[in-house]
C-alpha cells in the first residue's frame, strides 16, 4: 500500500480566549488523503474546519497554536518546519483558495499582478511565462476575455469571477495540494454552479489533491471523494461521500442533512377577507433624482405590485443586487418610493418616515440580516426590548418586565438573558432577540431581510420554525426576503422572484413545484445543489446561450435577456416582455408562450 499523500494524526489546536483561558478548538483530529483525491471538511461555524485546513499550510491564526499531533505532506512533517521552510512550501507545493475572494484580493493591485505573484515569489517562472500560464488558466476556468481580465482591479470584477481568479492564483505554481476554504459560500447559487464546475474540472484534470472546506453538504457532494464531519473541533464521522450521504451513522450528520432540507410548513386556512393587509401598487423606487415620469436616476425597483393577507408569508427571492432589501426599505418608509402606493389595511401610507404616525410605525417592523450590527452592543437584552414597549405601548416598570419575560419565552430564549449584553450571545440567540424586538412593537407585518443567511444551517432552520410558529399563533404577516429558494419554498405561501428590480415571476408556492415558470426561476431552482454526487454537470462552467442579434437598448428590453437560456431572436430583442398568467397560477414577465416554457426547466437541468 502506498503511503497517503496527506496525513493528519492526533492534531490538537488550542486558542486563547479573551479572558485568558485556553480553549481546545481542534481536538485529536486524524485523517488521511490519497494522492489526487478530494477530502471535504464539513461542519458549522466553530467546528474547527478552517483551523484544520489552515494547519495543513502550517498556519494558525493569531492567538491559536498547535499543541499536539502531526501534519504530513508526503514525507515532510509540516508542524516541524521553520518560517523560511514554510514560506517555500506555501503558494508553491500547497495553495490556498480563500472564502471571500473579494476580501482576499488586494484592492490596490491588478488581478494579474496578484495571480502570478506566487510563481514569481518562488522563482518558478519569469514574468512573461507566468502571465502566459495565467491567461491559459483564466480560459480553462471559464473567465470571460482571458487575455485582458488580468489588467483589472478587484473592485471591477464580480464575486464569481474573483473566486475563479483566486483558483487561477492557486493553480499557477502547479501545487500538489490545494485548500479550498468555503470558496462559494459568498456567491449566489446561479454563480456558484459555474464556479464549482470550474474548480472540479481543474482539480480533476491536474490530478491535484484537494481539501474542500464547507458547511454545505450538497456542495461537498459534488466535489469530494471523502467527507469528514466535524463538530466543536472533533470528528463526528468520516467516510466516502456515498456512505455519508446515503448511510450516515452519526446523529449530528443526520441533523445537518435534515436542516439542509427544510420541511414545508402550512399556513393558516385561507382567509377570505376582501381587504389585504398590505397592498403594493406600481411601486418604483431607486436612488438619485426623480425625473418627470417618476423614474429615479438609479432605478432599483420597477413597477412592483403585490398584496399580502394577514397571517401570510410572502417570499421575495433574487440574487444580490436584485432589489430585495430596497423593497423592504421602501415599504418601511426608509426609502420613499418614486412612484406607486403602499397601502396597509386599506389606508395609503405616506411615502417617507416623516409623514407616518407612531401607530403606522408600530404596524410594520423590520428584522435585519445581521443581528450583530442591528443590536446596540452597549445595551442589555432587556433594555433593547423595553425600548419599543415604552415607545409604542407606554409600558414601564413591572408591566414592561413581565412583557420582556413573555417575549423571551415566545422566542424560545431563557428569561435570564434579559440582564445580559447581546455581545455575550450566540448568533442564533442574537437573531431571536432581534425578532423579539420586532414582536415587542406588536406589529401586523414583519419584514424579514435575510434573517437566516448569516446563520448556520441547523440554527437557521430553528429560526424558520419559530417564524412559522409566530405567524400561526399570532397571525402576523411576513415578507421573507432570501436568496435561497428552497428556504422560501418551505415557509412561504406566495413567492415573488425579483430579477434586476422586476418581478419576473410571482404566484402561490404550489405554482413553483413544477414547470412551467419564468426561465430565471428555472435557473434558480436548477442551481440549488442537490444531495447526490452526480448532480453537477461536467464542463468548465461557461454555458453557451442561444445566439441573439445585436442588443441595442437593453433598458427597454427584458432585463434577463443577457443570461436567458430560452431567449428567441426576433422576439426577445424587440420589446419589453408582457405580463403572462400561467395556468398553474403564477404571473410571469416573459415573451415566451406557456407551451414554449414547459420544456425550459428540463433544458436548464440538462445543462
Amino acid at each position, binding site marked *: 500500500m502506498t503511503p497517503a499523500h496527506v496525513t493528519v494524526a492526533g492534531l490538537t489546536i488550542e486558542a486563547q480566549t479573551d479572558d485568558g483561558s485556553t480553549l481546545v478548538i481542534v481536538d485529536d483530529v486524524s485523517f488521511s488523503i490519497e494522492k489526487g483525491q478530494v477530502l471535504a471538511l464539513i461542519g458549522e461555524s466553530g467546528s474547527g474546519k478552517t483551523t484544520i485546513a489552515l494547519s495543513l499550510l502550517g498556519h494558525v491564526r493569531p492567538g491559536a497554536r498547535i499543541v499536539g499531533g502531526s501534519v504530513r505532506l508526503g514525507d515532510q512533517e509540516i508542524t516541524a518546519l521553520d518560517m523560511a521552510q514554510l514560506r517555500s512550501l506555501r503558494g508553491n507545493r500547497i495553495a490556498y483558495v*480563500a472564502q471571500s475572494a473579494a476580501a482576499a484580493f488586494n484592492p490596490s493591485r491588478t488581478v494579474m499582478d496578484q495571480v502570478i505573484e506566487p510563481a514569481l515569489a518562488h522563482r518558478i517562472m519569469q514574468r512573461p511565462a507566468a502571465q502566459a500560464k495565467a491567461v491559459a488558466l483564466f480560459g480553462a476556468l471559464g473567465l470571460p476575455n482571458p487575455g485582458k481580465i488580468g489588467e483589472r482591479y478587484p473592485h471591477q470584477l464580480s464575486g464569481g469571477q474573483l473566486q475563479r481568479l483566486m483558483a487561477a492564483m492557486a493553480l499557477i505554481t502547479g501545487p500538489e495540494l490545494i485548500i479550498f476554504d468555503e470558496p462559494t459560500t459568498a456567491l449566489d447559487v446561479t454563480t456558484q454552479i459555474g464556479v464549482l464546475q470550474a474548480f472540479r474540472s481543474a482539480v480533476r484534470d491536474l490530478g491535484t489533491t484537494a481539501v474542500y472546506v464547507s458547511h454545505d453538504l450538497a456542495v461537498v457532494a459534488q466535489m469530494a471523494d471523502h467527507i469528514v464531519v466535524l463538530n466543536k473541533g472533533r470528528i463526528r464521522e468520516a467516510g466516502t461521500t456515498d456512505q455519508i450521504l446515503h448511510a450516515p451513522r452519526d446523529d449530528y450528520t443526520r441533523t445537518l442533512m435534515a436542516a439542509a432540507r427544510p420541511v414545508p410548513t402550512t399556513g393558516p386556512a385561507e382567509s377570505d377577507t376582501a381587504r389585504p393587509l398590505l397592498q403594493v401598487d406600481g411601486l418604483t423606487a431607486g436612488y438619485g433624482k426623480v425625473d418627470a415620469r417618476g423614474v429615479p436616476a438609479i432605478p432599483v425597483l420597477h413597477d412592483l405590485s403585490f398584496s399580502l393577507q394577514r397571517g401570510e408569508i410572502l417570499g421575495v427571492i433574487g440574487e444580490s443586487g436584485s432589489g430585495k432589501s430596497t423593497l423592504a426599505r421602501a415599504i418601511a418608509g426608509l426609502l420613499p418610493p418614486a412612484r406607486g402606493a403602499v397601502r396597509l389595511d386599506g389606508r395609503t401610507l405616506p411615502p417617507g418616515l416623516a409623514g407616518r404616525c407612531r401607530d403606522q410605525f408600530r404596524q410594520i417592523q423590520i428584522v435585519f440580516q445581521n443581528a450583530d450590527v442591528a443590536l446596540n452592543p452597549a445595551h442589555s437584552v432587556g433594555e433593547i426590548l423595553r425600548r419599543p414597549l415604552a415607545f409604542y405601548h407606554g409600558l414601564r416598570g413591572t408591566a414592561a418586565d413581565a412583557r420582556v419575560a413573555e417575549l423571551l419565552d415566545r422566542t424560545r430564549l431563557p428569561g435570564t438573558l434579559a440582564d445580559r449584553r447581546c455581545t455575550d450571545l450566540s448568533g442564533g440567540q442574537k437573531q431571536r432577540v432581534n425578532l423579539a424586538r420586532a414582536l415587542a412593537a406588536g406589529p401586523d407585518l414583519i419584514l424579514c431581510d435575510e434573517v437566516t443567511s448569516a446563520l448556520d444551517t441547523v440554527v437557521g432552520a430553528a429560526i424558520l420554525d419559530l417564524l412559522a410558529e409566530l405567524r400561526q399563533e399570532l397571525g402576523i404577516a411576513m415578507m421573507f426576503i432570501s436568496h435561497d429558494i428552497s428556504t422560501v419554498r418551505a415557509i412561504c405561501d406566495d413567492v415573488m422572484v425579483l430579477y434586476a428590480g422586476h418581478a419576473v415571476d410571482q404566484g402561490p408556492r404550489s405554482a413553483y413545484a413544477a414547470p412551467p415558470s419564468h426561465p430565471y426561476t428555472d435557473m434558480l431552482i436548477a442551481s440549488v445543489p442537490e444531495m447526490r454526487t452526480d448532480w453537477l454537470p461536467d464542463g468548465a462552467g461557461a454555458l453557451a446561450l442561444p445566439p441573439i442579434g445585436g442588443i441595442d437598448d437593453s433598458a427597454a428590453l427584458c432585463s434577463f435577456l443577457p443570461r436567458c437560456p430560452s431567449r428567441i431572436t426576433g422576439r426577445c430583442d424587440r420589446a419589453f416582455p408582457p405580463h403572462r398568467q400561467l395556468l398553474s397560477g403564477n404571473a410571469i414577465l416573459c415573451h415566451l408562450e406557456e407551451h414554449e416554457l414547459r420544456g425550459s426547466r428540463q433544458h436548464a437541468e440538462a445543462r
Partner: protein
Amino acid sequence: MASPISAGSSGTRKIAIMIAGRIGLAFVTLFLVSLIVFAISDLLPGDAAQEALGQSATPAQVAALRHEMGLDRPAHVRFGGWITGLAGGDAGTSLVANMPVGEIISQRLPNSLLLAAFTALVSVPLALSIGIASAMNRGGRLDRALNIATLSMVALPEFLVATLAVLIFSVHLRWLPSISMVPEDAGWGEMFQSFAMPVGALTVVVVAQMARMTRAAVVDQLDRPYVEMALLKGLSRRAIIVSHVLPNAVGPIVNAMALSMSYLLGGAIIVETIFNYPGLASLMVNAVTSRDMPLLQACAMIFCSVYLLLMLIADVVAILANPRLRTA
C-alpha cells in the same frame, strides 16, 4: 510594487478635474482666510503709528503718521486695496521697515523652506520605520518600547528639547553652535553643524504623530484577509508590507504627514527663536509686536497656502494609490 499610476485616460482626466476643482476651492478658502486675518489684525489694540512713535508722542503726531500710512481710511477700503494688490502680486509695503513686503519675505521664506525640507528628510523616513516596525511587532516588546518613546516625544515641550540640546551640545560638549546662522557660502559640514539642532528639535516634535498614524494605518491593513492570503502565498513579511500593505495604507499615512509638515513652517517659531534662526515664523511674530499689518497678513496667507497645498498633495496621492477612486 507595480506602478499604481497606470490609470486610463478617463482616470487621468477625472484627477485633473478634481485637482482643478480643489485649486478653485483653495482660492475661495484663501479669500475667506484673508477676511478673517484682516478682521483679527484690525482687532489688535494699537497700530503701527502708535508703535513707531512710542509713549511720548502727542495725539496730533500719531494722527498725522496714521494719515501718512493710510490707516485712517475705513476698514473695507483698506481691505479692498490690500486684496487687489495681493491678487496682482503686490503684498504692500511694510509699515515698519518701509520696504516692500515681498522683498522682506523673499529673504526669509527660503530659510524656512530649507529648515522644513531638512526636517522632512529626517523625520519622514524615521516615522515610517518606527510606525511599520511597531505595527509588525504589534503587542511585542519593540512595539511597547517604541510606543513609550513616541509618547514621551509628544509629551516633551519643544523649548525643553531645544534648550537641553543647546545645553548639552553647545555649552558642555561644544560640538555645535548655539545659533543657527548659515553663511552664504557654507559647505556641507557647516550646513550640518548649523542645522543639526533645529532639525533635531523639530523632528522630535513631528515624528511621534506621524509614526503613530503610520502604525495605526498599517495595523488596520494587517488584519485584512488579503494579508493572510499573501502570507499563505509564501511571501516574506517584507514583501507583504512593501507590496501589499503600504499601497493600501499610503492614503492615511500621507495625510498625517501633510498635517505634520504644515506645522513645520509656522509652528517652528519656538525653535526659530531659541536658535535665533531667521525664518518666517519669527518674522510674523515681529510683525505682530510692531503692528506691521501688511507683513503679518502676508505671512498668514503664506502659511495658509502651504497648508492647502500640502492637503491637496495628500489627497491626490491618496486617490492615485486607490484604484477605486482613480478609475471609478
